[in-house]
Protein backbone atom coordinates (compact mmCIF):
# COMPACT_ATOMS: atom_id res chain seq x y z
CA UNK A 1 0.00 0.00 0.00
CA UNK A 2 1.52 3.31 -0.91
CA UNK A 3 1.29 6.44 1.17
CA UNK A 4 -1.38 8.20 -0.86
CA UNK A 5 -3.59 5.15 -0.93
CA UNK A 6 -3.31 4.89 2.80
CA UNK A 7 -4.31 8.52 3.19
CA UNK A 8 -7.20 8.08 0.80
CA UNK A 9 -8.43 5.07 2.78
CA UNK A 10 -8.13 6.95 6.03
CA UNK A 11 -10.00 9.88 4.58
CA UNK A 12 -12.76 7.51 3.52
CA UNK A 13 -12.93 6.07 7.00
CA UNK A 14 -13.28 9.56 8.41
CA UNK A 15 -15.97 10.72 6.03
CA UNK A 16 -18.07 7.67 6.81
CA UNK A 17 -18.60 9.10 10.28
CA UNK A 18 -18.98 12.86 9.75
CA UNK A 19 -20.89 13.33 13.00
CA UNK A 20 -17.80 12.65 15.04
CA UNK A 21 -15.19 15.14 13.98
CA UNK A 22 -12.18 12.94 14.54
CA UNK A 23 -9.37 14.61 16.40
CA UNK A 24 -5.83 13.68 15.71
CA UNK A 25 -5.75 11.10 18.45
CA UNK A 26 -8.67 9.23 16.94
CA UNK A 27 -7.10 9.41 13.53
CA UNK A 28 -3.95 7.93 14.93
CA UNK A 29 -5.81 5.09 16.60
CA UNK A 30 -7.60 4.46 13.34
CA UNK A 31 -4.26 4.46 11.64
CA UNK A 32 -3.27 1.72 14.06
CA UNK A 33 -6.11 -0.38 12.76
CA UNK A 34 -5.01 0.07 9.19
CA UNK A 35 -1.43 -0.91 9.64
CA UNK A 36 0.95 -0.10 12.44
CA UNK A 37 3.96 -0.81 10.29
CA UNK A 38 3.47 2.53 8.56
CA UNK A 39 3.00 4.54 11.71
CA UNK A 40 6.62 5.56 12.32
CA UNK A 41 7.04 6.61 8.71
CA UNK A 42 3.87 8.65 8.84
CA UNK A 43 4.71 10.35 12.08
CA UNK A 44 8.12 11.16 10.73
CA UNK A 45 6.37 12.95 7.90
CA UNK A 46 4.67 15.25 10.41
CA UNK A 47 7.41 17.54 11.66
CA UNK A 48 5.18 20.62 11.83
CA UNK A 49 4.83 21.84 15.41
CA UNK A 50 1.19 22.67 14.69
CA UNK A 51 0.54 19.03 14.09
CA UNK A 52 2.60 17.58 16.89
CA UNK A 53 1.98 17.27 20.58
CA UNK A 54 -1.14 18.12 22.54
CA UNK A 55 -3.34 20.82 21.10
CA UNK A 56 -5.91 22.89 22.87
CA UNK A 57 -9.52 21.99 22.28
CA UNK A 58 -11.83 24.90 22.88
CA UNK A 59 -15.52 25.63 22.51
CA UNK A 60 -17.01 28.61 20.76
CA UNK A 61 -17.91 29.99 24.20
CA UNK A 62 -14.31 29.63 25.37
CA UNK A 63 -13.22 31.65 22.35
CA UNK A 64 -15.78 34.41 22.89
CA UNK A 65 -14.95 34.65 26.60
CA UNK A 66 -11.23 34.98 25.92
CA UNK A 67 -11.98 37.69 23.34
CA UNK A 68 -14.09 39.59 25.86
CA UNK A 69 -11.38 39.36 28.54
CA UNK A 70 -8.78 40.75 26.14
CA UNK A 71 -11.06 43.58 25.05
CA UNK A 72 -12.03 44.45 28.64
CA UNK A 73 -8.36 44.63 29.57
CA UNK A 74 -7.47 46.86 26.63
CA UNK A 75 -10.49 49.08 27.10
CA UNK A 76 -9.72 49.67 30.78
CA UNK A 77 -6.03 50.24 30.04
CA UNK A 78 -6.79 53.06 27.59
CA UNK A 79 -9.79 54.40 29.56
CA UNK A 80 -7.59 55.00 32.61
CA UNK A 81 -4.96 56.75 30.53
CA UNK A 82 -7.59 59.06 29.07
CA UNK A 83 -9.07 59.80 32.50
CA UNK A 84 -12.36 58.12 31.65
CA UNK A 85 -11.97 55.79 34.62
CA UNK A 86 -9.93 56.26 37.84
CA UNK A 87 -6.42 54.95 38.33
CA UNK A 88 -4.65 56.69 35.45
CA UNK A 89 -2.36 59.71 35.17
CA UNK A 90 -2.77 62.58 37.63
CA UNK A 91 -3.26 64.92 34.68
CA UNK A 92 -4.66 62.89 31.78
CA UNK A 93 -4.85 65.93 29.52
CA UNK A 94 -1.09 66.43 29.66
CA UNK A 95 -0.05 62.78 29.69
CA UNK A 96 0.00 62.29 25.92
CA UNK A 97 2.21 65.31 25.17
CA UNK A 98 0.72 65.86 21.72
CA UNK A 99 -2.87 66.06 20.55
CA UNK A 100 -2.06 63.51 17.83
CA UNK A 101 -0.98 60.97 20.46
CA UNK A 102 -4.09 61.58 22.52
CA UNK A 103 -6.38 61.41 19.47
CA UNK A 104 -4.89 58.06 18.43
CA UNK A 105 -5.44 56.59 21.89
CA UNK A 106 -9.00 57.93 21.90
CA UNK A 107 -9.62 56.22 18.55
CA UNK A 108 -8.20 52.94 19.78
CA UNK A 109 -10.09 53.11 23.09
CA UNK A 110 -13.37 53.71 21.29
CA UNK A 111 -12.76 50.59 19.20
CA UNK A 112 -11.98 48.49 22.27
CA UNK A 113 -15.20 49.71 23.90
CA UNK A 114 -17.10 48.65 20.77
CA UNK A 115 -15.40 45.26 20.84
CA UNK A 116 -16.38 44.85 24.51
CA UNK A 117 -19.99 45.62 23.63
CA UNK A 118 -19.92 43.23 20.68
CA UNK A 119 -18.48 40.23 22.51
CA UNK A 120 -20.66 40.90 25.57
CA UNK A 121 -23.68 40.75 23.27
CA UNK A 122 -22.51 37.64 21.47
CA UNK A 123 -22.09 35.80 24.77
CA UNK A 124 -25.35 36.94 26.34
CA UNK A 125 -27.31 36.37 23.12
CA UNK A 126 -26.15 32.79 23.23
CA UNK A 127 -27.69 32.46 26.68
CA UNK A 128 -24.46 32.32 28.64
CA UNK A 129 -23.89 34.34 31.82
CA UNK A 130 -20.94 36.71 31.78
CA UNK A 131 -17.87 36.11 33.92
CA UNK A 132 -17.25 38.66 36.68
CA UNK A 133 -15.01 41.48 35.48
CA UNK A 134 -11.70 41.32 37.39
CA UNK A 135 -9.84 44.20 39.01
CA UNK A 136 -7.03 45.61 36.91
CA UNK A 137 -3.52 46.69 37.84
CA UNK A 138 -1.48 47.73 34.84
CA UNK A 139 1.73 48.08 36.80
CA UNK A 140 1.78 44.30 36.96
CA UNK A 141 2.01 44.29 40.76
CA UNK A 142 -1.36 42.56 41.27
CA UNK A 143 -2.44 45.26 43.69
CA UNK A 144 0.91 45.48 45.43
CA UNK A 145 1.26 41.76 46.11
CA UNK A 146 4.29 41.35 43.85
CA UNK A 147 7.00 43.63 42.43
CA UNK A 148 5.63 45.93 39.73
CA UNK A 149 6.95 45.30 36.22
CA UNK A 150 5.68 48.65 34.95
CA UNK A 151 5.53 50.97 38.00
CA UNK A 152 5.48 54.11 35.84
CA UNK A 153 2.87 52.95 33.32
CA UNK A 154 0.70 56.02 33.93
CA UNK A 155 3.45 58.51 34.67
CA UNK A 156 5.78 57.81 31.74
CA UNK A 157 4.31 57.87 28.25
CA UNK A 158 7.04 55.62 26.88
CA UNK A 159 6.25 52.92 29.44
CA UNK A 160 2.55 53.31 28.69
CA UNK A 161 3.20 52.84 24.97
CA UNK A 162 5.37 49.78 25.65
CA UNK A 163 2.54 48.16 27.57
CA UNK A 164 0.11 49.22 24.84
CA UNK A 165 2.31 47.53 22.24
CA UNK A 166 2.52 44.42 24.41
CA UNK A 167 -1.26 44.22 24.78
CA UNK A 168 -2.00 44.90 21.12
CA UNK A 169 0.59 42.45 19.78
CA UNK A 170 -0.66 39.87 22.28
CA UNK A 171 -4.25 40.45 21.19
CA UNK A 172 -3.36 39.91 17.55
CA UNK A 173 -1.59 36.68 18.39
CA UNK A 174 -4.37 35.45 20.67
CA UNK A 175 -7.15 35.94 18.11
CA UNK A 176 -5.01 34.19 15.54
CA UNK A 177 -4.63 31.21 17.85
CA UNK A 178 -8.40 30.91 18.32
CA UNK A 179 -9.74 31.06 14.77
CA UNK A 180 -9.38 27.34 14.13
CA UNK A 181 -11.80 26.60 16.98
CA UNK A 182 -14.57 28.67 15.41
CA UNK A 183 -13.83 27.61 11.86
CA UNK A 184 -17.15 25.82 11.39
CA UNK A 185 -19.11 28.87 12.52
CA UNK A 186 -18.81 31.41 9.72
CA UNK A 187 -20.46 34.20 11.67
CA UNK A 188 -18.21 34.05 14.72
CA UNK A 189 -15.18 33.35 12.53
CA UNK A 190 -15.72 36.47 10.49
CA UNK A 191 -16.35 38.59 13.59
CA UNK A 192 -13.08 37.31 15.07
CA UNK A 193 -11.11 37.85 11.86
CA UNK A 194 -12.42 41.36 11.48
CA UNK A 195 -11.58 42.17 15.11
CA UNK A 196 -8.15 40.62 14.60
CA UNK A 197 -7.17 42.90 11.71
CA UNK A 198 -8.48 45.96 13.56
CA UNK A 199 -6.20 45.04 16.48
CA UNK A 200 -3.30 44.61 14.07
CA UNK A 201 -3.83 48.17 12.84
CA UNK A 202 -3.82 49.38 16.45
CA UNK A 203 -0.61 47.47 17.12
CA UNK A 204 1.04 48.97 14.05
CA UNK A 205 0.09 52.49 15.06
CA UNK A 206 1.26 52.10 18.66
CA UNK A 207 4.57 50.90 17.24
CA UNK A 208 4.65 53.89 14.88
CA UNK A 209 4.02 56.21 17.84
CA UNK A 210 6.91 54.62 19.72
CA UNK A 211 9.17 54.97 16.68
CA UNK A 212 8.21 58.64 16.38
CA UNK A 213 9.38 59.00 19.98
CA UNK A 214 12.75 57.45 19.19
CA UNK A 215 12.21 53.77 19.90
CA UNK A 216 13.88 51.28 17.59
CA UNK A 217 10.77 49.42 16.53
CA UNK A 218 9.00 48.68 13.25
CA UNK A 219 5.25 48.76 12.68
CA UNK A 220 5.37 44.97 12.32
CA UNK A 221 7.03 42.54 14.71
CA UNK A 222 10.66 42.27 13.67
CA UNK A 223 13.80 40.59 14.98
CA UNK A 224 15.32 44.06 14.51
CA UNK A 225 13.02 45.60 17.15
CA UNK A 226 14.67 46.62 20.40
CA UNK A 227 13.19 44.10 22.89
CA UNK A 228 10.61 45.45 25.34
CA UNK A 229 10.42 42.31 27.45
CA UNK A 230 12.92 40.30 29.47
CA UNK A 231 13.50 36.62 28.82
CA UNK A 232 11.73 34.40 31.30
CA UNK A 233 9.04 36.91 32.28
CA UNK A 234 5.34 36.47 31.48
CA UNK A 235 5.26 39.31 28.92
CA UNK A 236 8.18 37.77 27.04
CA UNK A 237 5.91 34.95 25.85
CA UNK A 238 4.27 37.55 23.60
CA UNK A 239 7.48 37.77 21.57
CA UNK A 240 9.48 34.63 22.29
CA UNK A 241 8.23 32.73 19.23
CA UNK A 242 7.69 35.67 16.91
CA UNK A 243 11.10 35.37 15.28
CA UNK A 244 10.06 32.09 13.74
CA UNK A 245 11.23 31.80 10.14
CA UNK A 246 9.78 28.35 9.47
CA UNK A 247 6.40 27.90 7.83
CA UNK A 248 4.78 24.66 6.72
CA UNK A 249 2.50 23.86 3.82
CA UNK A 250 0.83 20.67 2.64
CA UNK A 251 2.14 19.59 -0.71
CA UNK A 252 1.15 16.35 -2.37
CA UNK A 253 -0.41 15.39 0.96
CA UNK A 254 2.88 15.77 2.79
CA UNK A 255 3.59 18.43 5.39
CA UNK A 256 6.50 20.32 3.92
CA UNK A 257 8.71 23.07 5.24
CA UNK A 258 8.68 26.12 2.98
CA UNK A 259 12.27 26.47 1.77
CA UNK A 260 12.68 30.16 2.57
CA UNK A 261 16.24 29.42 3.68
CA UNK A 262 17.31 27.70 0.48
CA UNK A 263 15.60 27.46 -2.88
CA UNK A 264 12.80 30.03 -2.92
CA UNK A 265 13.47 33.16 -5.02
CA UNK A 266 12.78 35.70 -2.28
CA UNK A 267 16.15 37.44 -2.03
CA UNK A 268 15.51 39.27 -5.27
CA UNK A 269 16.44 42.87 -4.48
CA UNK A 270 19.58 44.56 -5.77
CA UNK A 271 21.96 44.13 -4.08
CA UNK A 272 20.84 40.89 -2.38
CA UNK A 273 20.43 40.87 1.39
CA UNK A 274 22.56 38.75 3.69
CA UNK A 275 21.15 35.34 4.61
CA UNK A 276 20.32 36.63 8.10
CA UNK A 277 18.66 39.76 6.75
CA UNK A 278 16.38 37.93 4.33
CA UNK A 279 15.32 35.52 7.07
CA UNK A 280 14.51 38.51 9.27
CA UNK A 281 12.13 39.64 6.50
CA UNK A 282 10.58 36.16 6.55
CA UNK A 283 10.06 36.45 10.32
CA UNK A 284 8.43 39.85 9.85
CA UNK A 285 6.16 38.63 7.05
CA UNK A 286 4.20 36.30 9.37
CA UNK A 287 2.59 37.09 12.71
CA UNK A 288 2.51 33.94 14.80
CA UNK A 289 -0.44 32.69 16.89
CA UNK A 290 -0.33 31.98 20.62
CA UNK A 291 -2.45 29.48 22.48
CA UNK A 292 -5.08 30.66 24.94
CA UNK A 293 -2.88 29.68 27.90
CA UNK A 294 -0.27 32.25 26.91
CA UNK A 295 -2.91 34.96 26.55
CA UNK A 296 -4.44 33.98 29.90
CA UNK A 297 -1.05 34.24 31.61
CA UNK A 298 -0.67 37.78 30.34
CA UNK A 299 -4.22 38.63 31.45
CA UNK A 300 -3.37 37.26 34.89
CA UNK A 301 -0.39 39.59 35.17
CA UNK A 302 -2.62 42.64 34.88
CA UNK A 303 -5.63 41.45 36.88
CA UNK A 304 -6.35 40.39 40.44
Amino acid sequence: MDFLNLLARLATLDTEAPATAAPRRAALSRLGQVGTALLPALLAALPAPALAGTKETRTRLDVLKLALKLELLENEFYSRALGLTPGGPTNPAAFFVTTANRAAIQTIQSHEAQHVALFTRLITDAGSPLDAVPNFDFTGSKNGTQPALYPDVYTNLDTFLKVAQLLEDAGVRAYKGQVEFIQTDNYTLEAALRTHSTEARHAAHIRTMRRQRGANVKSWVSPADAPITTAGTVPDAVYSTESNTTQYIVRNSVITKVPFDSSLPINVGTPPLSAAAILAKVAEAFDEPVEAATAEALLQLFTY
Partner: protein
Amino acid sequence: MSNIQHNGSDEAEFAKPLYTPIKRRSFFMYAGATAGATALLLSGCDDDDDNNPVGMVDVGSGDPGVLNYAYALEQLEAAFYTTLRTGTYYTGLAAGSAEKSALDDLYYHEVIHRELFKTALGSGAIKGLEVDFSNIDFNARTSASGSSKLGVLDAAKAFEDLGVAAYNGAGKYITSADYLTLAGKIVSVEARHAALIRDLISNGTFVGSDVIDGNALERSKEPSEVVATANAFLKDGSKLNVSNIK
Protein backbone atom coordinates in the same frame (compact mmCIF):
# COMPACT_ATOMS: atom_id res chain seq x y z
CA MET B 1 -20.56 41.04 2.72
CA SER B 2 -21.83 39.99 6.07
CA ASN B 3 -22.75 42.51 8.68
CA ILE B 4 -22.32 41.80 12.33
CA GLN B 5 -25.52 43.27 13.62
CA HIS B 6 -28.00 42.56 16.30
CA ASN B 7 -30.97 41.12 14.46
CA GLY B 8 -33.27 38.15 14.37
CA SER B 9 -31.23 35.87 12.18
CA ASP B 10 -28.17 36.47 14.31
CA GLU B 11 -30.03 35.43 17.40
CA ALA B 12 -30.99 32.22 15.67
CA GLU B 13 -27.36 31.72 14.75
CA PHE B 14 -26.25 32.23 18.31
CA ALA B 15 -28.85 29.89 19.71
CA LYS B 16 -26.61 27.09 18.49
CA PRO B 17 -24.88 25.27 21.35
CA LEU B 18 -21.78 27.11 22.40
CA TYR B 19 -20.45 24.26 24.45
CA THR B 20 -19.76 21.88 21.59
CA PRO B 21 -16.05 21.42 21.33
CA ILE B 22 -14.77 22.06 17.85
CA LYS B 23 -11.80 19.83 17.59
CA ARG B 24 -8.95 20.08 15.27
CA ARG B 25 -9.65 18.42 11.98
CA SER B 26 -7.97 15.11 11.53
CA PHE B 27 -4.82 15.43 9.57
CA PHE B 28 -5.83 12.44 7.54
CA MET B 29 -9.17 13.84 6.56
CA TYR B 30 -7.34 16.97 5.62
CA ALA B 31 -4.61 15.22 3.69
CA GLY B 32 -7.12 13.09 1.85
CA ALA B 33 -9.16 16.14 0.98
CA THR B 34 -6.07 17.88 -0.27
CA ALA B 35 -5.19 14.96 -2.49
CA GLY B 36 -8.70 14.98 -3.88
CA ALA B 37 -8.73 18.71 -4.31
CA THR B 38 -5.42 18.59 -6.12
CA ALA B 39 -6.88 16.14 -8.59
CA LEU B 40 -9.86 18.42 -8.97
CA LEU B 41 -7.63 21.36 -9.57
CA LEU B 42 -5.63 19.56 -12.19
CA SER B 43 -8.80 18.57 -13.98
CA GLY B 44 -9.95 22.18 -13.70
CA CYS B 45 -6.86 23.61 -15.36
CA ASP B 46 -8.51 23.61 -18.77
CA ASP B 47 -9.15 27.22 -19.69
CA ASP B 48 -12.19 26.23 -21.72
CA ASP B 49 -14.03 25.10 -18.62
CA ASP B 50 -17.71 25.96 -18.95
CA ASN B 51 -17.70 28.07 -15.79
CA ASN B 52 -14.81 30.15 -16.94
CA PRO B 53 -15.26 33.09 -19.26
CA VAL B 54 -12.78 32.95 -22.12
CA GLY B 55 -9.46 34.56 -21.32
CA MET B 56 -9.94 34.77 -17.56
CA VAL B 57 -7.84 32.97 -14.99
CA ASP B 58 -10.03 30.59 -13.01
CA VAL B 59 -8.61 30.32 -9.50
CA GLY B 60 -10.53 27.08 -8.97
CA SER B 61 -12.58 25.80 -6.06
CA GLY B 62 -12.08 24.42 -2.56
CA ASP B 63 -9.00 25.26 -0.55
CA PRO B 64 -6.79 25.34 -3.67
CA GLY B 65 -9.18 27.94 -5.09
CA VAL B 66 -8.81 30.14 -2.02
CA LEU B 67 -5.04 29.64 -2.01
CA ASN B 68 -4.87 30.60 -5.70
CA TYR B 69 -7.00 33.65 -4.95
CA ALA B 70 -4.56 34.65 -2.22
CA TYR B 71 -1.65 33.83 -4.54
CA ALA B 72 -3.13 36.14 -7.19
CA LEU B 73 -3.50 39.03 -4.72
CA GLU B 74 0.02 38.52 -3.40
CA GLN B 75 1.32 38.45 -6.98
CA LEU B 76 -0.38 41.78 -7.57
CA GLU B 77 1.05 43.32 -4.40
CA ALA B 78 4.54 41.93 -5.02
CA ALA B 79 4.49 43.21 -8.61
CA PHE B 80 3.43 46.63 -7.34
CA TYR B 81 6.26 46.93 -4.82
CA THR B 82 8.70 45.54 -7.40
CA THR B 83 7.68 48.11 -10.03
CA LEU B 84 7.72 50.85 -7.41
CA ARG B 85 11.47 50.35 -6.99
CA THR B 86 12.06 51.61 -10.55
CA GLY B 87 10.06 54.84 -10.14
CA THR B 88 11.65 58.16 -9.27
CA TYR B 89 9.60 58.49 -6.11
CA TYR B 90 11.33 55.46 -4.59
CA THR B 91 14.75 56.03 -6.15
CA GLY B 92 14.69 59.58 -4.82
CA LEU B 93 14.22 58.49 -1.20
CA ALA B 94 17.27 58.89 1.00
CA ALA B 95 19.03 55.66 1.91
CA GLY B 96 18.02 54.65 5.40
CA SER B 97 15.00 56.99 5.45
CA ALA B 98 11.97 55.69 7.30
CA GLU B 99 9.84 55.67 4.18
CA LYS B 100 12.41 53.81 2.09
CA SER B 101 13.03 51.13 4.69
CA ALA B 102 9.27 50.65 5.09
CA LEU B 103 8.79 50.23 1.33
CA ASP B 104 11.75 47.83 1.23
CA ASP B 105 10.16 45.72 3.97
CA LEU B 106 6.81 45.69 2.20
CA TYR B 107 8.49 44.58 -1.03
CA TYR B 108 10.17 41.62 0.65
CA HIS B 109 7.10 40.67 2.70
CA GLU B 110 4.89 40.50 -0.38
CA VAL B 111 7.45 38.55 -2.41
CA ILE B 112 7.70 36.12 0.53
CA HIS B 113 3.91 35.75 0.70
CA ARG B 114 3.73 35.19 -3.05
CA GLU B 115 6.39 32.51 -3.01
CA LEU B 116 4.76 30.76 -0.05
CA PHE B 117 1.47 30.36 -1.90
CA LYS B 118 3.21 29.33 -5.11
CA THR B 119 5.02 26.62 -3.16
CA ALA B 120 1.86 25.47 -1.42
CA LEU B 121 -0.02 25.18 -4.69
CA GLY B 122 2.73 23.40 -6.60
CA SER B 123 1.49 22.25 -10.00
CA GLY B 124 -2.00 23.53 -9.12
CA ALA B 125 -0.85 27.16 -9.06
CA ILE B 126 -2.35 29.63 -11.49
CA LYS B 127 0.07 31.22 -13.93
CA GLY B 128 2.17 34.26 -13.24
CA LEU B 129 -0.18 37.20 -13.80
CA GLU B 130 0.56 40.13 -16.09
CA VAL B 131 -0.17 43.39 -14.33
CA ASP B 132 -1.42 46.69 -15.70
CA PHE B 133 -0.24 49.61 -13.60
CA SER B 134 -0.96 52.27 -16.22
CA ASN B 135 -3.18 54.05 -13.69
CA ILE B 136 -0.36 54.42 -11.17
CA ASP B 137 2.22 57.20 -11.32
CA PHE B 138 5.37 55.63 -9.90
CA ASN B 139 7.05 59.02 -9.89
CA ALA B 140 4.57 60.61 -7.49
CA ARG B 141 4.31 60.04 -3.74
CA THR B 142 0.60 60.77 -3.70
CA SER B 143 -1.80 61.73 -6.45
CA ALA B 144 -1.17 65.17 -7.84
CA SER B 145 -4.29 67.30 -7.77
CA GLY B 146 -6.10 66.97 -11.05
CA SER B 147 -4.22 63.79 -11.97
CA SER B 148 -6.28 60.71 -12.72
CA LYS B 149 -3.37 58.49 -11.69
CA LEU B 150 -2.79 57.09 -8.22
CA GLY B 151 0.37 58.09 -6.45
CA VAL B 152 2.60 55.38 -5.01
CA LEU B 153 1.25 55.65 -1.46
CA ASP B 154 -2.36 55.93 -2.63
CA ALA B 155 -1.95 52.74 -4.63
CA ALA B 156 -0.18 51.01 -1.73
CA LYS B 157 -3.05 51.97 0.57
CA ALA B 158 -5.59 50.65 -1.92
CA PHE B 159 -3.76 47.34 -2.32
CA GLU B 160 -3.14 46.80 1.40
CA ASP B 161 -6.69 47.71 2.48
CA LEU B 162 -8.04 45.48 -0.28
CA GLY B 163 -5.82 42.61 0.80
CA VAL B 164 -6.99 42.74 4.42
CA ALA B 165 -10.67 42.88 3.41
CA ALA B 166 -10.05 39.98 1.02
CA TYR B 167 -8.49 37.75 3.68
CA ASN B 168 -11.21 38.69 6.17
CA GLY B 169 -13.85 37.63 3.67
CA ALA B 170 -12.09 34.49 2.48
CA GLY B 171 -11.50 32.85 5.86
CA LYS B 172 -14.89 31.17 5.83
CA TYR B 173 -14.11 29.44 2.52
CA ILE B 174 -11.00 27.71 3.90
CA THR B 175 -11.65 24.18 5.19
CA SER B 176 -8.13 23.34 6.37
CA ALA B 177 -7.45 24.60 9.91
CA ASP B 178 -3.77 24.90 9.08
CA TYR B 179 -4.39 27.09 6.06
CA LEU B 180 -6.88 29.21 8.00
CA THR B 181 -4.19 29.85 10.60
CA LEU B 182 -1.63 30.51 7.88
CA ALA B 183 -3.95 33.08 6.29
CA GLY B 184 -4.30 34.61 9.76
CA LYS B 185 -0.53 34.90 10.05
CA ILE B 186 -0.47 36.89 6.82
CA VAL B 187 -3.55 39.09 7.15
CA SER B 188 -2.40 40.79 10.33
CA VAL B 189 0.89 41.70 8.67
CA GLU B 190 -1.10 43.16 5.75
CA ALA B 191 -3.16 45.13 8.26
CA ARG B 192 0.04 46.46 9.83
CA HIS B 193 1.22 47.49 6.34
CA ALA B 194 -2.08 49.21 5.64
CA ALA B 195 -1.92 51.09 8.94
CA LEU B 196 1.60 52.36 8.31
CA ILE B 197 0.92 53.42 4.70
CA ARG B 198 -2.13 55.32 5.89
CA ASP B 199 -0.10 56.98 8.63
CA LEU B 200 2.54 57.97 6.07
CA ILE B 201 -0.15 59.64 3.97
CA SER B 202 -1.75 61.30 7.00
CA ASN B 203 -0.67 60.51 10.55
CA GLY B 204 -3.50 59.10 12.66
CA THR B 205 -5.52 57.58 9.80
CA PHE B 206 -4.31 54.03 10.50
CA VAL B 207 -7.83 52.74 10.88
CA GLY B 208 -10.17 55.20 9.26
CA SER B 209 -13.94 54.94 9.38
CA ASP B 210 -13.78 53.88 5.73
CA VAL B 211 -12.32 50.50 6.73
CA ILE B 212 -14.29 49.66 9.90
CA ASP B 213 -17.95 49.55 10.84
CA GLY B 214 -19.84 50.70 13.93
CA ASN B 215 -18.73 47.62 15.87
CA ALA B 216 -15.07 48.48 15.16
CA LEU B 217 -14.89 45.46 12.90
CA GLU B 218 -12.72 45.86 9.84
CA ARG B 219 -14.30 45.51 6.44
CA SER B 220 -14.52 42.13 4.83
CA LYS B 221 -15.08 41.64 1.12
CA GLU B 222 -16.31 38.72 -0.90
CA PRO B 223 -13.94 37.41 -3.58
CA SER B 224 -16.21 38.77 -6.32
CA GLU B 225 -15.98 42.30 -4.86
CA VAL B 226 -12.24 42.04 -4.46
CA VAL B 227 -11.53 40.96 -8.02
CA ALA B 228 -13.74 43.72 -9.37
CA THR B 229 -11.03 46.03 -8.04
CA ALA B 230 -8.02 43.76 -8.57
CA ASN B 231 -8.88 43.07 -12.21
CA ALA B 232 -8.49 46.77 -12.99
CA PHE B 233 -4.77 46.22 -12.34
CA LEU B 234 -4.47 43.04 -14.41
CA LYS B 235 -4.06 42.73 -18.16
CA ASP B 236 -6.56 40.94 -20.38
CA GLY B 237 -5.74 37.28 -20.15
CA SER B 238 -4.71 37.68 -16.50
CA LYS B 239 -8.01 38.88 -15.06
CA LEU B 240 -9.38 36.67 -12.30
CA ASN B 241 -12.50 34.54 -12.19
CA VAL B 242 -13.34 33.61 -8.60
CA SER B 243 -16.87 32.32 -9.21
CA ASN B 244 -15.94 28.80 -8.17
CA ILE B 245 -14.95 29.84 -4.63
CA LYS B 246 -17.99 29.17 -2.54
